[in-house]
C-alpha cells in the first residue's frame, strides 16, 4: 500500500502530471466513442418478431 501511495505521490509531483493526465483522459474518451461506433448496433430498423410461423 505504501509503495502505491508513494508512487501516486511521485507521479503527482512530476512536472508533466497534468499534461499526461489530460492526454490519458482525451485518449480514453476518443477510444470509448470509437469503439462504441464500431461495435454497437446502430441499426434504426424497427424491432420485429413474427407472432407465428
Amino acid at each position, binding site marked *: 500500500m505504501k509503495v502505491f501511495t508513494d508512487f501516486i505521490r511521485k507521479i503527482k509531483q512530476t512536472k508533466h502530471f*497534468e*499534461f*499526461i493526465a*489530460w*492526454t*490519458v*483522459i*482525451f*485518449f480514453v474518451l*476518443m*477510444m470509448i466513442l*470509437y469503439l462504441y*461506433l*464500431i*461495435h454497437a448496433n446502430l*441499426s*434504426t*430498423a*424497427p*424491432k*420485429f418478431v*413474427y407472432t407465428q*410461423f
Partner: protein
Amino acid sequence: MKKLTAFLTALVLFLVSAAGMHFYAESRITVNNNAFSFWAIEKKFVAREALTKNINADTVAVFGSSEFQHGRKTPYHPGNMFAGNKFNMMLIGAGYYQSLSHALTLASIGNDLPTKEAVLFISPQWFRSDGVLPEPFSSRFSETHYIGMLQNPNLSKTTKTYIIERVKTLLKADPPALERTELYEKVLSGNASFSERLNYRLYTSFLKEKELQSVAIRMARDGIKKNASLSSSEREPDFQALMDQAGKDGEKENSGNPFFMDDSSYRLFIRPFLKAKKNQSVNGSYSTSPEYADLECFLHVCQDLGIRPLLVSLPVNGYWYDYTGFPKKERQIYYEKIRQVAKKYGAELADFADQEYTKYFFEDGVHIGKKGWVMINESIYRFYQKNKTDKTL
C-alpha cells in the same frame, strides 16, 4: 496550453491505435479453412468485404433462412459434416431473410464467385399472402451489399430497377436507412453534388470499417481461427451411414410426440400451444404471394451474372401441418408452383416435397433436422461435384 496540446497528443495516439486495429482486423479477416463459410451469424452476412475475401474456388454460395442456425451442434449441420473438406458452403441467411434479401446479396457478391454456383433454400413460409414484410426486411438490410449491387456492371437494368424499387418500398420502415440508400443511388448514378459525394465517402468508409472490425472481433470470440488445420480433404462424407445414424438419433431424441420432432423443440415451442394450434390454419395458403416475383428476381440475378442456381424446395412437416389443418391441396399447389418457376428459368431443383412425412426430417414444425440436413447436404454436394467434373471435361 497544456490542454489543447494534450488533446493533440491524444489524437495522434488515437489515430495510431485506430490504424493498428484496422490492420489487425484486415489481417484477421481472411481465413485458410472453411469454418468461416459455415459460420452462420448476421454480422457476417451483411459484411460484403468479409464475404468476398473468404470466397474461394470451392465455395458454393448458399442462401436460406433460420435453418442455418438450427442443429449447429449436431453432426448433420453442414459445418460439421464438411469440416476439413475443401468444399465449402458460404452460408448466408437467418430468420427474416427471404428471396429479395438474397437476390440483393447475390447481386452484390455474384461476380466474386469463381464457381458461379448458388443454392437457395426456399421455405414455404416465405410465401404468405403479403410476402416479405417491411420491418423484418429492413432489420436484415445490408447497405454494403446494396452499394455492391448498384456498382455491379453485369446486372441488367431491369433487374436493378426491380430491386431498387422493392427496397425503396420496404425500407419505409426504416427512414434513416432509406434516406441513405437514396444518397447511394444518387452518388453512384453520377449526379450528386460535392457535399453529397463527400457525405457518401465519409459514411461508407465508416461503414466498411465498422463491418470489418466487428466481424474480426466476432470471429475471435466465436473461435474462427485464421490458421486452423488447412481444409484440403476431398473425401466425400458417407451419406448413407449418416442417414442411418440420423434415423437412430431421431428415435433417441423423440419420446413419443406424434409429429416426429425433437423433444427439446417440442416441449418448448409446440406443447404449450397445442390446443391453440389445432385446426388454426384451415384457411392457409402459399399459392399467391409477392414472394414469387422476388424469387424470380433472384433467378434474374443468376441469369445476369451467369450463375448456375440450385433451388432447394423445402417441404413442411406433414404431421404437424395436418394437425394445424393447413390444407394438403394448398401445399401441393405451392410445390408445383416452385417446380414451374424452376422450369421457367432452367434452374436445377432439389425437390423435397415428397419428404413431408419422412420421420426425423424435421427438428420441429418447420426447421429441417437430422435427416433433412443429410439429404439436402448430399444434393448440394452432388451439384458441386457435377459442375466440377463438367468443367474439367
